[in-house]
């Protein structure tokens, strides 16, 4: 495990943390958003907030594909799953997300819907071959990382002439969401000073994708890996830029991320998908050009075209603060549902569902830390 252990060296981490303490200007507050849920998870797993000065605050962003999917799209999946001919399949975390009236895909499955959990989209292909009399629908979600495998699924189905498979496409785009976060709505200030840029997403889209943020909004972006040393180094780089009044894209994760990303994956996505004019995000509302849909040449694999889907106007829990949490305006524990009644066992909001969701990570890791501090 050398390849991982070197990024978890406690001594080096403490040196880096010490350096951040020296760098941080006591006269100012640094609010750094980790866009990606994988980063949120790592921040808590390694207890990074405890190593940082109080005025360097990590803000958890919307980078969890489960958390940002609006209830309306989930209701559509539930509607599909109720059709007797449909086998609906999706990734595991998606199955637990609460929709309206206490529903979820897991509950629908218990009520008799044929809903399967997949590890890889290509399993949907096997299901379609095994059940030629049924309609297999892949409920596709995720950022740029999970989009290429969905594209492969559609192309493979096309090559094999499989006709009983379709995709309910909910793939979303990171830069568009970052743009939405930095564009304050009326009466509300942008809540962050800089971004810790996503790791896996950036391996696909490349560091150049973030160029508009420093230019247009004056906010630095440092792309970081998922290991604790990666994150601490990225934080130090961000604090350094902010101290120098700079705003650039820097790439801490340089051994995996190139300026142009992965051209093969990008070309594949380009062949199969095109941008939607607008897409609703949980927490961010309608965001222009922020998601993908299946191109007309592959329309026969588009579940939205194959089935007549209604667009139910489902509502989230009225007291749920997930939208403010996703925008970096509130901490999870500032939501009055947090802890009781909203817990990972009984999630009322999407951020409590996925282990990468900000509220679930807070619940899972921070309760212990708070208890420790109280003891001390």
């Amino acid at each position, binding site marked *: 495990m050398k390849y*991982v252990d070197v990024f978890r060296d*406690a001594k080096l981490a403490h040196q880096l943390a010490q350096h951040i303490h020296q760098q941080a200007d006591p006269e100012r507050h640094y609010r750094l958003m980790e866009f990606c849920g994988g980063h949120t998870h790592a921040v808590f797993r390694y207890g990074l907030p405890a190593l940082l000065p109080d005025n360097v605050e990590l803000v958890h962003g919307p980078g969890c594909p489960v958390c940002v999917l609006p209830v309306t799209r989930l209701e559509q999946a539930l509607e599909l799953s109720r059709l007797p001919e449909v086998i609906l399949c999706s990734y595991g975390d998606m199955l637990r997300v609460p929709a309206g009236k206490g529903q979820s895909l897991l509950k629908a499955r218990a009520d008799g819907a044929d809903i399967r959990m997949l590890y890889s989209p290509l399993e949907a292909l096997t299901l379609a071959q095994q059940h030629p009399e049924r309609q297999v629908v892949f409920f596709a979600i995720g950022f740029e990382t999970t989009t290429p495998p969905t594209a492969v699924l559609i192309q493979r189905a096309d090559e094999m002439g499989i006709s009983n498979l379709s995709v309910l496409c909910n793939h979303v785009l990171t830069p568009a969401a970052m743009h939405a976060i930095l564009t304050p709505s009326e009466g509300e200030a942008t809540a962050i000073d800089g971004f810790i840029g996503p790791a896996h997403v950036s391996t696909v889209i490349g560091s150049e994708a973030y160029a508009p943020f420093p230019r247009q909004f004056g906010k630095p972006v440092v792309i970081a890996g998922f290991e604790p040393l990666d994150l601490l180094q990225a934080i130090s780089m961000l604090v350094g830029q902010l101290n120098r009044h700079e705003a650039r894209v820097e790439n801490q994760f340089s051994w995996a991320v190139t300026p142009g990303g992965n051209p093969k994956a990008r070309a594949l996505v380009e062949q199969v998908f095109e941008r939607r004019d607008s897409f609703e995000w949980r927490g961010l509302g309608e965001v222009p050009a922020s998601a993908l849909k299946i191109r007309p040449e592959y329309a026969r694999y588009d579940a939205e075209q194959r089935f007549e889907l209604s667009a139910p106007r489902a509502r989230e829990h009225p007291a749920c603060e997930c939208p403010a949490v996703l925008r970096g305006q509130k901490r999870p524990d500032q939501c009055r549902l947090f802890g009781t009644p909203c817990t990972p066992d009984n999630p009322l909001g999407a951020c409590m569902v996925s282990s990468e969701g900000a509220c679930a990570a807070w619940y899972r890791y921070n309760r212990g830390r708070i208890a420790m501090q109280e003891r001390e």
Partner: protein
Amino acid sequence: MSRLDLTNGKVEMAHGGGGRAMAQLISQLFARAFDNEWLAQGNDQAQLSLPAGRLAFASDSHVVSPLFFPGGDIGSLAVHGTLNDLAMCGARPHALSVGFILEEGFPLSELARIVESMAQASREANVPIVTGDTKVVERGKGDGVFINTSGVGIVPEGLDLSGDRARPGDCILLSGSVGDHGACILTQRESLGFAADIRSDSCALHRLTQAMVAQVPQLRCMRDPTRGGLANTLNELAQQSGVGMQLEEAAIPVIQPVQAVCELLGLDPLYLANEGKLVAICPPEQAPELLALMRAHPQGKSAAIIGTVTADPQQFVQLRTRFGGNRLLDWLNSEPLPRIC
């Protein structure tokens, strides 16, 4: 009575119907493989003469997929599972029962493999399978084979191990590396297509536990961290005893291939199932002796003291990470799932 075709035959509804076909399956497969005086009597129950002591009684159902995996199969697992549940209270296992729920169409050759494996596990443990039951469900209503095993054992006089006996200051010991069984099963699932060389740790622990209770009768409790892994087991014990726990991540053994699979899938080995490991809690004075004893036993070679019991009304299980931080090791709130991206 005609011969059962164990090479090409399939389970049929008649094999659970109570007639000639079922009698044929029992006599030519089950009774022959498990072969003991109680089964040979052909009664609907086994009549056992038990030594003095408290009777321990445990039951466990097995629904694992895939049925065969490196290091074991559903048959040996079903034997080990119940033996270990008995062993954790210090009982000497005495006899097992087995209930099969078979799916119509299941190949008899695979059933025979499973039954042979159970028979071998029971012989190795020296605990006979003395009674059983078979039911067949229609094709599509089962997952090949489900197995329930129940068992009885005798707890020696004066021994009292229970999950509510952990006290602040006690030491927490673990018999070996965690996550082997869970990671093995995950890598064997067709869809993941992994080639990791991980074997299940499935084994019977009653010989190890008997050595432990004989030498350290002051033991507070033992438990095998099966589903939910080490993390859930410790949360259970913390809740039962009304205490907290402080663990050292660096002290918890995890073999490298398991660690690698967990890194790739975004899973935590502390939440993965084990089928041949145990956690023991004992007063601190006895911990060095108990550790030495465990390490001298083949099933406890990698045993370690992994933490201590703390006074904590919130009953938190905390983990001091290799990285120097401290984090909560919470209950698992659903099945461990690989991350999406």
